[in-house]
């Protein structure tokens, strides 16, 4: 819930600042729709594999759990790599967060989401290590439920980001 409030305030800041481009690049120039579509599909699929992982834990299916949790990890890493690549490219061509209010708020909003994804990835790694060392325990189902809550929440925030930031930006609003 407090994470919701955090993202809401970052969205509000972006809503206020997104027109202040200070003579620099605008959203129309910067956002590549097909790239964002691939990012979105990667994250959506990782949300799906996360759900499968929860089911595997409930049914004590060890192989399924390894595979689905591993798939979630790989997809999460792919998403993060794509996002970091985009950030690096923007900064390299001179559209970093220091250029205008629009870019500052964009980098903060999307960057905070990326940071949450990174923490989620660390969480998956801990879960996998625990699974490898101890196998499925009584607590595994609970842990996976909690992780899946976090991961699904991140996908929901991404729905808002890709709709309101990327799609709105690319239709010159």
């Amino acid at each position: 819930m407090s994470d919701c409030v955090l993202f809401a305030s970052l969205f509000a800041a972006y809503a206020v600042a997104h027109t202040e481009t200070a003579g620099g690049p605008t959203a129309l120039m910067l956002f590549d729709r097909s790239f964002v579509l691939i990012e979105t599909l990667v994250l959506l699929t990782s949300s799906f594999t996360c759900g499968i992982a929860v089911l595997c834990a409930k049914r004590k299916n060890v192989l399924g759990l390894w595979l689905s949790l591993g798939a979630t990890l790989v997809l999460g890493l792919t998403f993060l790599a794509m996002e970091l690549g985009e950030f690096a490219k923007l900064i390299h061509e001179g559209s970093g967060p220091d250029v205008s209010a629009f870019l500052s708020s964009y980098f903060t909003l999307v960057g905070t989401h990326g940071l949450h994804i990174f923490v989620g990835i660390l969480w998956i790694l801990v879960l996998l290590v625990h699974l490898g060392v101890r196998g499925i325990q009584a607590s595994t189902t609970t842990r996976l439920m909690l992780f899946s809550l976090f991961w699904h929440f991140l996908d929901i925030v991404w729905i808002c980001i890709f709709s309101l930031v990327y799609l709105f930006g690319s239709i010159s609003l």
Partner: protein
Amino acid sequence: MDMHFLSGVSVWLHFTMTTSSTHSKKDRASTVGIASYTIGFAISLVLTLLSFLVAPFVGILAAPMIVILAIVQLFVQLLFFLHLGSERGGHLTIVLLGFAAGIIGILIIGTLWIMSNLSHLHRSTPTTQDIYQGGVVAPQNELH
């Protein structure tokens, strides 16, 4: 053949419904187990692709469409992935969601209102040069 298929489906349904201990018997079968995640994934996929297709073509009219698609997808993911609202007696969940939506709404709408107010007010502030013309306070800027 038909009987085999039907009995297989009923066994599968029974299996998915009884192996999840966190769901009560009151949940619909479509919001439980593998069916829940598959349906949720499929619907979200369709909604996402729709959003991306609508964006370049309709122009400014696409804005409300994208918002509606996003909100629908949000609820689809809440229901099918997070299972928030699939219980028959889950009124508390809806109230909590409404509360969260209210807080977020106050935050965002309030911010936009205040900031637009501020930028409007600051637009008509005269500069120091306007106030002092020729070494004296210009008549229109004198305080009475």
